[in-house]
């Protein structure tokens, strides 16, 4: 089966990110494929590489980055939701004259069209809400 997961919760705020990560891992372990991870609403905060949780806590954003890298997953962060929340890549930082960017490796800013395309291309669409 081909899955698309929509993640709407921020790490360390609610459980959406943690549950989605565990689901994604289980689906991949079971031989399924993930067509796209779509980070939307507060879920965009999962894509910040500047999160610095204490050492005795699970580093959720790092775990996402690792999973994405390991399985070469397509991880899209909704650009409109991200920019208004301060999650930004180098191109957008330049466009909006910001002094820095923070998007983690493996994530890509793009439009809501990527969610719509993913839903059309996937067998199953799951939302992980806050």
């Amino acid at each position, binding site marked *: 089966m081909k899955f698309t997961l929509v993640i709407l919760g921020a790490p360390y705020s609610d459980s959406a990110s943690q549950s989605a990560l565990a*689901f994604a891992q289980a689906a991949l372990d079971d031989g399924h494929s993930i067509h796209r991870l779509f980070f939307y609403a507060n879920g965009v905060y999962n894509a910040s590489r500047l999160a610095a949780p204490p050492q005795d806590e699970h580093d959720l954003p790092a775990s996402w980055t690792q999973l994405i890298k390991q399985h070469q997953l397509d991880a899209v962060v909704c650009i409109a939701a991200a920019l208004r929340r301060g999650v930004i890549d180098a191109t957008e930082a330049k466009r909006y004259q910001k002094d820095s960017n923070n998007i983690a490796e493996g994530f890509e800013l793009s439009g809501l069209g990527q969610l719509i395309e993913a839903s059309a291309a996937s067998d199953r669409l*799951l939302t992980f809400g806050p």
Partner: protein
Amino acid sequence: MSTLHTVNKSPFADQTLQSCLTLCANGDSILLIEDGTYGALTAAPTTALLNSVIARGITVYALGDDLAARGLHSQLNNITTINYQTFVRLSCEHKTIQSWY
């Protein structure tokens, strides 16, 4: 084809589980996750409704990791405790997944 419903809110605080139980259809399944697992307690305000939904053939599950984290175990013997592997399998077996939060 049927729907898998996930519910992640405590029925002691929120109407989410009640709405889900009211609108689920025959052949659907319900999975209690995160704070939704408090719905597996006999003291939950939704217990009577939940039992009636199970009686008409809807299967209810609870995620074991989320029960355990909260120091809970399902007090309703008609709720099945499952792991993420089974969560994945259930989402394959149903056509759509509605997430109630």
